[in-house]
């Protein structure tokens, strides 16, 4: 499997690519050299032929010259000297060409030098014959003829040597050329094979990669679809629950209100005409309806805190505090409570929820006050910079810290977290009324604002609720 991993790394692919290119270049170079060799080889063969032809031509011209000399000596034909001159010229040309052609071959060069010397001798004899032909004695004539023949034989031998050298060269070069030609198909095969191999490997690799990608993509799409489906289900279910919660609380209010109003009229008008039991029962009914109303109110509050459309706007907390105090004005007066606060912040929040939060907390402090001790509620706000209280994970977050401190009955710190749990109570309904929803609503509201709420209790001394509101942007301060 590790090998496959290496196969997948991009570096590996790059190296392979470079190698492939290099291989192709190498193969091309070899091919080029091969073709060059064939070309040179055929040129060499051509050269050998040229030399041979030239030498044969020379020999033929020399032979002609000899025949013309002998002819002249025999016939004294006046036309022959001119022809002899022409032949001499031709021979000169031949010699020139042969010297040039045999420059590269030492042996041939030496032999061609010999020919030259012999030819010089021959020309002397020929010239002799031309000039003194009519004054020749029969012995001189015989001598000239004989000398001519001897030189001719020597020339012939040299010529033969030259020709045989060329023939040998030709054979060798022919062999080379043949072997080159024979190896050509092999070379072509190597090129073809290597190219096809590289292309095939590349194709196989690309194909495999594509298949893998397609598979991953398929898996990803599947997972996404499942997540989307589940998401949609959850959203739908959530919406249903919220709607149910809201409608139930809302629609229950109506008949309850009627019950309460009619009971209150009954009590106002006809309480005295009931038996003492009847009176007691009626009053108990009234108590129960009051509790039911409390519960429905709180449930309604809870569902409102839960709603998904949460509109944040710039909110002055001081105003909201005043509103809460007004809402609770009667209880505050009855209990002779004092509420002290410093300047609260003005920041982005959901106004009706913050007001609910304040109302619930103050209400709690009033409700759980100590007997015969007038409640004193202190509300204090401060700005926490640089995450001093270690609230969030981000060092840079700033918070507003608002504390609600009272001098009521407090609670055991053991329950500091439990009291925020829905329907959780620390007292039964005979001691203190309540639904166990109030603090859950507070926690939900603080959660909606991405903040934190903590409770600390001191039995018989009081309780402190601390709320942290994160500050989103610099505009808030």
């Amino acid at each position, binding site marked *: 499997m590790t090998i496959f991993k290496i196969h997948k790394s991009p570096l590996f692919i790059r190296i392979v690519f470079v190698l492939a290119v290099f291989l192709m270049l190498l193969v091309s170079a070899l091919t080029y050299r091969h073709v060059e060799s064939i070309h040179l080889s055929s040129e060499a063969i051509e050269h050998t032929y040229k030399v041979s032809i030239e030498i044969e031509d020379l020999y033929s011209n020399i032979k002609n010259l000899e025949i013309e000399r002998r002819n002249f000596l025999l016939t004294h034909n006046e036309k022959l000297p001119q022809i002899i001159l022409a032949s001499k010229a031709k021979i000169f040309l031949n010699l020139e060409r042969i010297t040039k052609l045999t420059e590269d071959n030492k042996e041939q060069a030496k032999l061609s030098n010999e020919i030259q010397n012999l030819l010089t001798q021959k020309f002397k004899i020929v010239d002799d014959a031309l000039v003194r032909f009519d004054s020749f004695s029969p012995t001189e004539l015989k001598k000239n003829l004989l000398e001519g023949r001897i030189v001719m034989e020597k020339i012939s031998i040299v010529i033969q040597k030259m020709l045989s050298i060329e023939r040998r060269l030709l054979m060798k070069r022919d062999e080379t050329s043949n072997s080159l030609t024979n190896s050509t198909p092999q070379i072509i095969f190597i090129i073809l094979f290597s190219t096809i191999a590289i292309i095939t490997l590349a194709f196989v690799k690309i194909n495999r990669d594509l298949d893998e990608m397609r598979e991953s993509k398929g898996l990803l799409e599947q997972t996404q679809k499942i997540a989307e489906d589940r998401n949609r289900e959850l959203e739908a279910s959530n919406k249903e629950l919220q709607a149910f919660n809201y409608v139930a609380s809302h629609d229950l*209010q109506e008949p309850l*209100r009627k019950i309460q109003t009619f009971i*209150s*009229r009954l009590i106002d008008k006809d309480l005295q005409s009931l038996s003492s039991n009847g009176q007691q029962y009626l009053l108990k009914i009234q108590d129960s309806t009051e509790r039911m109303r409390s519960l429905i109110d709180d449930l309604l509050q809870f569902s409102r805190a839960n709603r998904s459309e949460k509109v944040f706007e710039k909110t002055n907390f001081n105003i909201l505090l005043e509103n809460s105090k*007004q809402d609770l*004005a009667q209880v505050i007066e009855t209990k002779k409570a004092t509420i002290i606060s410093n300047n609260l912040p003005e920041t982005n929040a959901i106004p009706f929820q913050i007001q609910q939060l304040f109302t619930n907390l103050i209400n709690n402090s009033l409700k759980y006050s100590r007997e015969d001790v007038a409640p004193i509620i202190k509300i204090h706000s401060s700005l926490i910079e640089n995450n001093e209280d270690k609230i969030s994970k981000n060092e840079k977050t700033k918070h507003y810290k608002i504390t609600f401190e009272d001098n009521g009955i407090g609670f055991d710190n053991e329950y500091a977290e439990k009291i925020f749990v829905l329907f959780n109570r620390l007292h039964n309904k005979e001691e203190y009324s309540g639904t166990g929803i109030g603090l859950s609503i507070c926690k939900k509201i603080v959660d909606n604002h991405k903040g934190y709420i903590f409770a600390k209790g001191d039995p018989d001394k009081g309780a402190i609720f601390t709320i942290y509101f994160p500050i989103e942007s610099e505009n808030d301060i």
Partner: protein
Amino acid sequence: MEKEYIHIILADDDEDDRLFFTDAFDELKINTKVQTFINGVELMNYLNEENSILPNVLFLDLNMPKKNGIECLLEIKENERFNDIAIAIYSTSSSEEHIEETFVNGANIYIKKPNDFATLKKILSDVVTLNWQYHTSGLNKDNFLLRM
């Protein structure tokens, strides 16, 4: 000649609520004449009659069949003839949306129907004896929702 009584109209589809309302005024010592209508259509038909006596205070329930409270409110505010009517929304709901909507469309005060009769009497007494001009001069949402 000045009227000696305060003319009050309630539009509410609920029979019991109409009963509470009229009984409350019966027991109050204020000089009032109370009319009730069972839905928005009946209400508007009455108001639009040429010779109808317009109320000093109109209590509007929001949830009514055929024509609801908001629709009535809009119609009333469009007609200059009804400019002197003080409109009190009288509803079971205390939702932010309803309070907002009725405030924006020109209602003078928002009352949540109370749970007991004594409170109802007190509310009605306070509302009809309000000095409306003083109350509505600072069009302010804080004054809008009646707090007890």
